[in-house]
């Protein structure tokens, strides 16, 4: 379907342009050319992303069905590689240095987990064309895929990258629901997850604990862990209806807001463009995700359907958690805002995901 493909592309590029404007603004007052030129790198990533989008959107998504287990293997391999020889930045080992850029395998892991789960749940029985997933027992419906998911998720959380790990778990639960696995299993895993929180708490690092505690009450440590949330809320709130104007946001320009070009880019944008800009941006994301869901609904191929759901929900979960984190509704876990935040891996992974989505929309006619 050409129209939804074009819509997705237009919305994605529009969000990217907004993102580049905000990245430019957030580093406008910083010292050093390296910081100021950062937006140019993002433009470079955007073009690379567009090329990948065009290639992937013309690449039959069914081929992913064939190579999904290979992709799973590649992800595990790359994540192990991160442990062995990953680049360390601000206390986390998340990147692989490849030639001139740093690749963040966890960004691609999310997408590959979706492909993997879509493949896993779209298995058909030999005798009938109908799906067998709703008849799966607890072992096949829950435990086996959970083990498969837990290995990369656990490795990512250990990097440490709690945010991406949580996203993968979230995608898993959302896809269980979307795939039509018995509802009781979905509830069971939610229950297990809830019960295991006190146990898992002990495995968290101190700064992660601080962030979660600060989420409950940001004022316990206004200059420490709570600082980011307070500054982000001030940035967004002070924008008012029309915002302070591009390049005129004091919170981001004067560096009160940390991570103003990555995880907190929504705060940077909202400060300068106000409620008017913020609502338009949220609406753009909403239409993008709705477009993805609509493709999933239209697709009759079960693998394609699940894949489209997975991609749309992945985008939705990331957008919602990131903005909620900016607004102080969610704890600060490192999750970028797809298409907006600075970072090549995230941008490329998102464009690849969108490319798959568009291809699913196109290929519908074949079946």
């Amino acid at each position, binding site marked *: 379907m050409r129209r939804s493909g074009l819509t997705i592309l237009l919305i994605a590029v529009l969000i990217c342009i907004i993102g580049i404007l905000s990245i430019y603004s957030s580093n406008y007052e910083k010292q050093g050319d390296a910081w100021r030129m950062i937006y140019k790198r993002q433009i470079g990533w955007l073009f690379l992303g567009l090329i990948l989008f065009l290639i992937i959107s013309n690449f039959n998504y069914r081929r992913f069905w064939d190579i999904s287990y290979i992709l799973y293997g590649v992800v595990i391999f790359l994540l192990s590689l991160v442990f062995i020889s990953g680049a360390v930045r601000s206390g986390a080992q998340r990147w692989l240095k490849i030639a001139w850029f740093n690749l963040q395998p966890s960004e691609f892991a999310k997408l590959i987990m979706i492909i993997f789960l879509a493949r896993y749940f779209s298995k058909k029985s030999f005798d009938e064309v109908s799906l067998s997933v709703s008849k799966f027992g607890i072992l096949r419906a829950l435990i086996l895929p959970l083990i498969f998911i837990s290995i990369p998720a656990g490795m990512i959380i250990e990097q440490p990258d709690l945010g991406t790990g949580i996203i993968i778990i979230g995608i898993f639960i959302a896809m269980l629901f979307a795939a039509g696995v018995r509802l009781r299993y979905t509830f069971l895993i939610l229950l297990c997850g809830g019960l295991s929180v006190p146990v898992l708490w002990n495995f968290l690092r101190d700064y992660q604990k601080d962030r979660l505690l600060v989420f409950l009450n940001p004022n316990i440590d206004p200059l420490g862990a709570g600082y980011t949330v307070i500054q982000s809320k001030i940035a967004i709130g*002070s924008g008012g209806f029309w915002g302070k104007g591009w390049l005129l946001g004091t919170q981001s320009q004067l560096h009160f807001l940390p991570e103003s070009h990555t995880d907190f880019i929504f705060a940077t944008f909202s400060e300068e463009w106000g409620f008017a800009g913020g609502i338009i941006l949220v609406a753009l994301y909403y239409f993008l995700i709705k477009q993805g869901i609509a493709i999933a609904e239209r697709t009759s191929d079960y693998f394609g359907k699940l894949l489209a759901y997975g991609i749309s*929900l992945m985008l939705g979960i990331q957008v919602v958690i990131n903005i909620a984190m900016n607004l102080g509704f969610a704890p600060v876990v490192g999750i970028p805002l797809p298409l907006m935040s600075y970072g090549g891996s995230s941008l490329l992974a998102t464009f690849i995901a969108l490319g798959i989505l568009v291809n699913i929309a196109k290929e519908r006619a074949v079946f």
Partner: protein
Amino acid sequence: MRVKIINLAITFIFLFIALGIFNLQIIQGARFKNLSDNNCIRLLPQIGGRGRILDRNGELIVGNYLSYDLMLLPQEKSQSDKALALISRALGADLADLKDEFKQNYISPFIPVMLVKNIGFKKAVSLGELKSDYNNIIIQPKPLRFYPYGKLASHVIGYLNEIDHWRLSRLKDYGYETKDIVGFGGIEEKYDYYLRQEDGGLSTQVDHRGRFVRVLGFRPPVDGKDMQLTLDIRVQKISEEALAERKGSVILMGPDSGEIIAMASSPDFYPSLFITKPALAMASLRNSALINRAISGAYPAASVFKLVVASGALETGKINQSSTFICSGAARIGNRQFNCWDEHNAQDLANAITHSCDVFFYKTGILLGPQALHDYALKFGLSKPTGIDLPYEAGGFVPDPLWKKVYRLQNWFDGDTANFAIGQGDLMVTPVQLARLMAVFANKGTLVTPYLVKGIDNKDVSAYRKRNAAIAIKKSVINCIRQDLRAVVSEPSGTANLLSDLPVAVAGKTGTAQASGGKTHGWFVGFFPFNNPKFVICVFLENSGSGHTACALARQIIEGMSRENLI
């Protein structure tokens, strides 16, 4: 089914987010805007200097010195601790004390914390060097009042203190605010509007580390206007030294212009104490030390009032220069015996003034009548404030028969007239009124308005002053009495003969006032040099002497002035 749930959930969650943004930006927008401004805007006050007060020769009476306050902008705790350690080393102060002070005065992360007030210049400079490394150290210069002569002319100057409720309610419309430092008494109060400075300030934008980014706005502080007084600090000093610890006041005034050359009142106070320790300063005051006795104290005029009686009687023709009364040491008026302080025998007007004969003036006063006495007293400017440019001037009081009838419900008797004629009874005058009265004789007939301010901000303000008016009494009468005033000093039997051997010819009149329940007050009011008067002097001693002791004090002052060639 599940598809519907997914769609609904997405729509619901996005609506929730949109509401969250609406809440933050629209509902709480103003609050966050304020917080954002607090984050990055620092207001650094720049305090102007209050106007200085100078004497007639440009000598500084009250000036300002720069005091420095040390403040610290809170940052990350490690930074603050490092800065505090450095400060304690530079000042030699205890680190624990500084930390306590920091904690106590801490208001919010974005407001500078006052650490130490009034650090010296040297310490300010050495701390200023730390500033390059620790930009959270703020050294705030603040001009404070400086009194090079200590308590000299304290009543004329007044003192400074935090504005009180009463003054604030009157001055609110003129831009005064609570916590403002304003003048209390004297020139500081009267001319506060000119003297007060306008504080300026610098609003700067800082980044997250408190580093300066840019200046957003600047309002330069405006210093208050300087006041040049008519006081001569040297004469003032001589007067105050002569007065010493005695209660009373001394005024020296230019007879032609009314300019106050010296005005002392004792006991006095240290204005500087009110700046550092106002409570202590208040507690240390004794005997109404804040009252400027020269203008705010009303006392019986005693024999000095005889000049009014003489003027009235001469002009109305009740007596002439050769009219003579016999003083036998007492006179019977009504059914009461009125004593004179001596037995003077035959006295004409010149003798009566020279000897201050009471009997002569009892009789002259009765001839003239109380109403005329009252009217002549008013001609000499008694019973209402002279209009000197100082606050809280008293008006004094001049009685008359109608007043007695209305307020005391009593008839006026001749005995009242007799008492009135020698300046006793209900008559009350202030020292400055008597100085002005004497000036009429010194300048031969002009009632001056005393004043203290010569110039404001280097501009002569005499053009805006009330004109001095000729008194409505015949020149010949004034001149006649003027001659007699000289005789008071020059005649060996004159009451002020003590002043006869001074290098300058003095004229004047003494007075010894009966004070209710206590020792007598002493007056000497005069002028010198006699032929071409340059000074009117009014010495008043409260409960501590007679006209003679007042003369002695005047002698001390005039001697001092001639020794320093000030005449």
